[in-house]
Structure formats: structure tokens, C-alpha cells
């Protein structure tokens, strides 16, 4: 366990180096947070309530999803695929810790960095510009922490599997890009999943992608409380376990493949 903590810490520290890059990203998030908030203002002028959201809820959702982009890695990251293509993966696979665990630990280190230095400032900017809805119950913060941790796991496991495609194809980025585009839409990043037509909503809400963005946002908005909250977190946990398990399975298959090629 100590080794994973150490790996996570290193990943966190590595991000600290790219301060200018983070500031540029923060500027981008703030701009898009604003640009995407304005149509919501107009939309709620026409109707006071959309699918159970009032204007403040919608604005809070808008800034939360902007804040989460980097935390849950919505735009991806191709380091794993790069090590597979370069062949460095062979030495990583033979290290005395889990390959999946290594990258998961790194991703948590990265996520914590972006939670502190990206998500927090983005939400504060949203608060300054529009005034957001903040949780009314202290317990929500605890639930949010759990939900975020699970969201990072789901986002990671999905991205990790897209990266592993590099074992089979030279176009992992192309395949992955398609996957990410789909997940962006289905995660509730472009539009809240509650806005979807009634016949489509149950489907998109049951998919794992909902757990990457929409569920943490719902928890923060206290749209799910009590048993519903438990259910939402349970669904996230289930998907996190399933996807991480699937990712581990893929690692095993891929490792066998590497060994065969190497022999």
C-alpha cells in the first residue's frame, strides 16, 4: 500500500511543475463556464423549472461539470498507450506491484491535484460570477468525497481500457477519442442527464458514464438524498468495481500477449 501512496504523491508533485499550463487551463474552463452558463440563463427565462432544476441548480451543475473535466480526466490522457507503443510497458509489467494499481495510484495523485488547483478555483469563479447553490447538509460533503473518489475510479478504468487498446492497434488514440466523445455526451457533461427525453433518461442514467460527472454533480446539488443517495453511490461503486475488474482482466490478457511476443 505504501508504494501506491508514494506513486500517487509523485504524480501529484509532477503536476505541480506545470503551473502555467494549469493557469491557462483554468482560464479556458472559466471562459467556457461563462459561455455555457449564458444559454442556461436564457433557457430559464422561458421556463422557471426544467426537469426539476431551477436556474441556480442548472448554473451549479454547469460550473461543477467544468470543474470536474480534469479531475475525472474527461478529455483523456494517453500516457499508458504511449508506454505500450514505446515498449516501456514491458518493464512496468515486470515491476513488483500491480500494473493497474500503479496507474490508478498515479491517477488519484493527478486527480487530487486538479481537485485542489483546478476544480476549486473554477467553482469559486462560478460562485463569484453567478452565485451557486451550496450544500445545505454537512453530510453532503462526505458523500461528495465518496462520489468523487468513485467517479475518478470509473473515469480512470474507462480511460485505462481505451489506452490498453494500444496493445492491439496502433490507433489507440483514434479509438479512444471516439470513446471519450461518447462518454462526454453520456456522462451529463454537455447537458444534464435529467433533461434527456423520458424514454432515453433511464438508459443514460444506468450507464457507467453517469457515474463520472452526473452523479457527483447530483450529490453536490443534493438532488439525491437519503436512500436515493445510497443507491447512487452504490451504482457508482458497482460500476467502478466492474470496470476495474474488466480493466484488470484486459491487463492479464495483454500481458500474456506481450510474453508470447517476447518469447
Amino acid at each position: 500500500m505504501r508504494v501506491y501512496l508514494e506513486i500517487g504523491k509523485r504524480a501529484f508533485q509532477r503536476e505541480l511543475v506545470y503551473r502555467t499550463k494549469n493557469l491557462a487551463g483554468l482560464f479556458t474552463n472559466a471562459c467556457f463556464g461563462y459561455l455555457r452558463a449564458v444559454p442556461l440563463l436564457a433557457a430559464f427565462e422561458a421556463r422557471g423549472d426544467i426537469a426539476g432544476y431551477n436556474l441556480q441548480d442548472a448554473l451549479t451543475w454547469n460550473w461543477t461539470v467544468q470543474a470536474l473535466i480534469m479531475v475525472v480526466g474527461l478529455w483523456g490522457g494517453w500516457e499508458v498507450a504511449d508506454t505500450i507503443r514505446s515498449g516501456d510497458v514491458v518493464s512496468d509489467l515486470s515491476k513488483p506491484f500491480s500494473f493497474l494499481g500503479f496507474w490508478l495510484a498515479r491517477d488519484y495523485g493527478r486527480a487530487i491535484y486538479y481537485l485542489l488547483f483546478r476544480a476549486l478555483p473554477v467553482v469559486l469563479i462560478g460562485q463569484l460570477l453567478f452565485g451557486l447553490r451550496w450544500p445545505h447538509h454537512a453530510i453532503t460533503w462526505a458523500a461528495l468525497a465518496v462520489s468523487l473518489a468513485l467517479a475518478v475510479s470509473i473515469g480512470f478504468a474507462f480511460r485505462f481500457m481505451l489506452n490498453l487498446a494500444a496493445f492491439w492497434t496502433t490507433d489507440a488514440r483514434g479509438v479512444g477519442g471516439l470513446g471519450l466523445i461518447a462518454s462526454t455526451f453520456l456522462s451529463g457533461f454537455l447537458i444534464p442527464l435529467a433533461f434527456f427525453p423520458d424514454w432515453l433518461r433511464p438508459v443514460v442514467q444506468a450507464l457507467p458514464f453517469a457515474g463520472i460527472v452526473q452523479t457527483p454533480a447530483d450529490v453536490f446539488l443534493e438532488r439525491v438524498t437519503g436512500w436515493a443517495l445510497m443507491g447512487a453511490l452504490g451504482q457508482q461503486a458497482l460500476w467502478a468495481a466492474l470496470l476495474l475488474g474488466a480493466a484488470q482482466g484486459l491487463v492479464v490478457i495483454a500481458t500474456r500477449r506481450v510474453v508470447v511476443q517476447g518469447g
Partner: protein
Amino acid sequence: MPLREYWRLYWRLVGASARGQMQYKASFLLATAGVFAANLFDFGALLVLYHRIPHLAGWSLGEVALLWGMSAVSFALADTIASGFDLVPAMIRQGDFDRLLTRPLGAFFQTIAARLTLRRLGRIGQGLVILAVAQGEVAIPWTPGKLAVLMVALAAGAAIFFSVYILGAAYAFWTVEGTEVVNTFTYGGTTMTSYPLDIFHGWLRRFVTFIFPLAFVNYYPALYLLERPDPLGLPAWAGWLSPLVATLCCVVAAWGWSFGVRHYQSTGS
């Protein structure tokens, strides 16, 4: 060198880059599908929103779709032609821009001839389809003048986005850090132009009318087509101004580019 020879050389160089890209056919197809899907979802989100509301600041779905389509066609045109400028930050970082400057051709010409991304043509098709459906939806009473405004606006919009690309690339001559900020202007620009500008605050609307004139990509031409008055008070013929504004943008971009090239500090010792 006579213009005709430049033209032929352009196609030769662009053809070479296309043949290079074709070495990775699967990547090309996947990227094409990716661009297509991304725009489909983008428009899908708009549909989902309109499924819940009757109008947006008095603009119907058909009217907003008209804006969306115009913006998509213009942006995709610019994106296809100017995608060589996307390579500039990487070329500068890796020192490959040096190579351009050792050849007896202008850096601008070589950059634009470095790539023609056909994968974005899918977006032009999407934009055109949505444009066609949208104009039927809002039942524009077409006149030759309106048709001309539309055609000119699509080209002028492309030129305006094109200038943004060039200025963004020129920015990289000073620093290759924070090229993300440049994307804010290109992609932020498409986001803004996908909505009626009346919804934005006055200062931003003035900014995109008089300083960073995205309003002339589609908003003013669309107001003319829809015969809607401008909340900022510009007369109806503002819809005809797009080519003038686009020319101004190109002049500024050309100046910024050549200033940047002179400022270029090659990497390495």
C-alpha cells in the same frame, strides 16, 4: 513566382501531406468519425435542451439551428484550410519551423500548404444539412439578396475563423506555453456563434461585434435573413458587412503573422 505556380505547388504539397496521412488510414477514418460524432452530440445537446423549452430568448429551434449550421460550415471550412497552422506550436517546439525558413518560399505559404484536413469536411456536410433543414423550418422568404448574404457570410465567416487561427499560431512565436488559451478563442468562438448573441451580456456582445468580430460570422447575416432587428441597434445592412469585416480580420492576421515570424526565436543552441 507567378500565382499559378503557387497554386500548383500548393496542391503538390498538400497532396504530399495527404499521402502521408493516408499511411494511417484507420487513424484518418477514426478521426473523421470522431469529428462527426462530436458535432452530432453537440447538436444533440441543443435538441435535448429545446425538448424542454419553447424558445431561447425568443429564438426558436429552427432559428438557432440556422445559426448553428452557418457557424459549423464556416468554422469547418476554416478548420480544413488552416489546419496547417495547428501544427505551428509543435513545429516551433521541435525546431521544425527552421526548415520552413531555409526554403525559398514564404513561411505563410508553407504553413498553409503543410496540411489540408479532409476529415473535417464531414462537419461541413453536417452543417449544410442542418442549415437546409433549419431554413425550411423557419420558412425564410428567399430573395436573391438574401441568398447572396448567406453565401457571402459563409465565406466571410470562414475567413474570420481563419484569421483567428493565424493569430493563434502567431501567438506561439512568443510562447508555446498556454496554447490552450488560443483554443478558447477558436472553440469558444464556435460555442458563442452557435447561440443567438442577444443572450450574452452587453459588454461581450459589443466585444464580439467591434473588437473580435465573431458577430459577423453568422449573427448579423442571420438577423438579415430572418428580418429581425438588432438589439444593439445596428441597421439591417450590417448583415452585408461580413466581407468587409473579414477582410479587415485577414489584414490584422497577416500583420500579426509576419510580426511573429520576425520575432521567431528558434529553439536549440
